[in-house]
């Protein structure tokens, strides 16, 4: 035992000596007596001067992003690091440090307990709750002071994700939507020479493309009804309804429309049950069997276990790479019969910590990080056919020369052609289809949780669609009345 302890002691001491170097250098210094007082987390009446360099002291600004620390070329971390190097060279009085692998939850504790990070990446659905709680710096004055070419370049609808109660708390980073992936060859075999154009046709198409094995088990599903954001974000867009009415208080805008929406999804489950004898649980089991293979060589779209798949658009790049010769294509989810074409909107955003000691410098860094030029550069990275930057210029570049460049760099011409086709299609969607997001209300997470919980009870037959809608209202209406929602209005500068 003694020997063991002695040995340990020795090893620890050696390691301690080795470690002293980096750990000493990289410690972020505790806040020294600076000219700026540390504000209490009050976000409403923040005084802001136009961004100006203050004194000769170098100001430290930390940027936390959510991607892994990877030295692989084209990895997001490399792009942020390269941006930081360039920024630091151009701004002698600001020093930006990029910290990888910091998720929203990591940032949460740090913000609650101190002043780091200055800038961090977040999911859109956290933004309203955090803004309401005073974690985020109100960026409206900075938005007002920012140049028109910076502001006007953002895709308008994505700014809605950054706005809470009429104020800006975040800056858009990426923009995502979700599209339908069709196995065109399977559809053709089943007598479909075109994609379904509305929800009625879709139901028929699901029926036609579904296939059972000889023993009655699932060989292929037309569509997996249970998919991320299917019910909460995308379906209202498809069914032309809103989770919150225009008055900002009534949830949801149209009870019947939401009930019908649940009923439609339920009808897919019913179809499987009535035609093939697969109950809700069987479908769920099938779903958990294929879910681990998403975006791999065994993706259910590539294996043909699904004829149609609803997924985020970043699957396109992977599919093009893995199987350039499989016959698939993308399209928007068919609309409710008689409705108008809509697509869902999501994305992640950058925010500034309300307790930052250097709000002005943080903003200078953030404005550079989200400038149209930076976005065009970033668009070349590994995310080029994953998430898209929420900038008009970046999207235009992707659809044009940049897209050519990316396509040409792919391993095979087939893959390149597929990638180019996808980029053009998606850029067109982002630019021309009206995008609808989940309302950025302060109770967004409670709302999402309630919809998730009760819709599950509809699909497995425990509740009727209307009962579920009433249950959601019972949970959420009190919150909605306490926190009226102010819809976002876009005005170009």
């Amino acid at each position, binding site marked *: 035992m003694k020997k063991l302890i002695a040995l340990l002691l020795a090893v620890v001491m050696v390691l301690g000596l080795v470690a002293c170097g980096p750990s000493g250098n990289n410690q972020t210094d505790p806040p020294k007596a600076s000219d700026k007082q540390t504000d209490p987390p009050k976000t409403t009446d923040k005084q802001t001067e136009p961004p100006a360099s203050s004194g000769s002291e170098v100001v430290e600004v930390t940027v936390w992003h959510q991607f892994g620390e990877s030295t692989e070329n084209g990895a997001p971390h490399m792009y942020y690091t390269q941006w930081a190097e360039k920024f630091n060279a151009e701004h002698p009085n600001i020093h930006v440090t990029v910290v990888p692998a910091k998720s929203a939850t990591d940032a949460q504790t740090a913000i609650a307990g101190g002043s780091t990070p200055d800038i961090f990446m977040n999911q859109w659905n956290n933004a309203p709750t955090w803004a309401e709680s005073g974690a985020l710096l109100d960026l409206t004055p900075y938005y007002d002071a920012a140049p028109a070419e910076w502001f006007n370049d953002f895709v308008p609808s994505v700014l809605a994700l950054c706005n809470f109660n009429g104020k800006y708390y975040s800056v858009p980073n990426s923009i995502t939507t979700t599209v339908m992936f069709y196995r065109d060859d399977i559809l053709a075999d089943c007598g479909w020479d075109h994609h379904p154009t509305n929800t009625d046709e879709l139901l028929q198409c699901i029926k036609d493309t579904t296939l059972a094995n000889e023993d009655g088990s699932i060989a292929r599903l037309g569509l997996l009804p249970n998919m991320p954001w299917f019910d909460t974000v995308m379906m209202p867009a498809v069914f032309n309804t809103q989770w919150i009415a225009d008055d900002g208080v009534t949830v949801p805008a149209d009870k019947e429309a939401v009930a019908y929406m649940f009923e439609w999804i339920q009808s897919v489950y019913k179809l499987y049950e009535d035609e093939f004898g697969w109950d809700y649980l069987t479908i769920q089991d099938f779903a958990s069997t294929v879910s681990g293979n998403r975006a791999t060589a065994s993706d259910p779209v590539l294996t043909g276990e699904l004829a149609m798949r609803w997924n985020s658009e970043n699957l396109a790049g992977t599919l093009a790479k893995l199987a350039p010769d499989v016959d698939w294509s993308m399209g928007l989810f068919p609309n409710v019969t008689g409705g108008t074409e809509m697509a869902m909107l999501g994305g992640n955003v950058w925010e500034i910590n309300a307790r930052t000691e250097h709000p002005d410098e943080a903003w200078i860094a953030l404005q550079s990080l989200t400038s149209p030029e930076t976005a065009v550069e970033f668009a070349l990275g590994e995310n080029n056919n994953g998430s898209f930057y929420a900038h008009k210029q970046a999207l235009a570049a992707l659809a044009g020369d940049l897209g050519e460049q990316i396509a040409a760099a792919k391993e095979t011409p087939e893959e390149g052609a597929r990638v180019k086709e996808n980029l053009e299609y998606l850029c067109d969607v982002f630019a021309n289809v009206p995008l609808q997001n989940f309302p950025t209300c302060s109770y967004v997470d409670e709302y999402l949780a309630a919809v998730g919980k009760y819709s*599950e009870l509809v699909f497995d037959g425990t509740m009727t669609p209307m009962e579920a809608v009433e249950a959601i209202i019972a949970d959420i209406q009190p919150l909605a009345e306490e926190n009226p929602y102010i819809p976002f209005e876009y005005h170009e500068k």
Partner: protein
Amino acid sequence: MAKALSNSEGKKTTLTTKRKKSRQERRFFWTGLAFASPWIIGFILFKIYPICSAIYYSFTDFNMFRTPNFVALQNYVNLVQDKNVIKSLENTAYMVIIGLPIMLAFSMLMSVVMNMKAKGMPLVRTILYIPAVVPSMASALLFLWVMNSRYGIVNQFINQVIALIPGFIKDALPFTLKAPSWINDPKWTKMTLIIMGCWGCGGTAVIGLAALRGVPTQFYEAAELDGASRWTRFWRITIPMISPTIQFQFIMGIINTFQYFTQAYMFNMFTTTSQVTGGGPKDSLLFYAINLYREAFDFLHMGYACALGLVLFMIVLVVTFIAMRVSDKMVSYDVE
């Protein structure tokens, strides 16, 4: 700390019989204090403030970021009416009442196996410990694969067993025999986590092994000479000898199972698609700590979460107290 050690050693004093008792008492007090000082320092520095803040926050509307407002007992009133709290208590009670005994018994079985005498035991012990070493994310992913209802090894085995059962028995049964849907059926999800717990019990099994190793071999030799069977030896010697460790595992099991979090969190993360912390199929995995986490970090109701935490503390305190009282009677620390 080193100073405290040398101080206590310097207290070697020869004791006179007259003042022996009081002096010895004083000596014991100071050495006791010195030896406990690391914990006392840690408690004062790092425990008292967080605990007091949690208590204070539980009477406020604290949201993690803003200065909290006092709301008196509002959080506790809300808590009593909260449907999620009741559901999460039910799920947690299931884990404590059904899951914990299964996991404890299994981990003891593993300790006994690890203590067996056979060729290659070092290797066997290491292998039995592997699931506890594998990063929890990897083992959760693997477990989803093992328990997959269509292709998982477990269900393939069960299906083969069912196929062996003659048809007339199956027909006579009031229900159809079917391999369960471990991951999606709310009736089975908790059992899946219990099995996962058994599989990763290496940590507690190793503690049990250490206890078994501490049983002096002479006892067994003596008993064998007396003609005691293996079974008798196990119940009469092994169990009493390791009873302090069993009690430790039992009490710690209660404390930890009430706070059951990581595995369920991981499991929900891989099986549900929502960005909000999930409670598994039909909230069947909404454990107390999961609900608490969701309130604190998703909904930012930190004050409410602190109230939840303190209520849990009270519950665990009472249950542990009773468990201690009951089990103390069965534990023997007597070596002779």
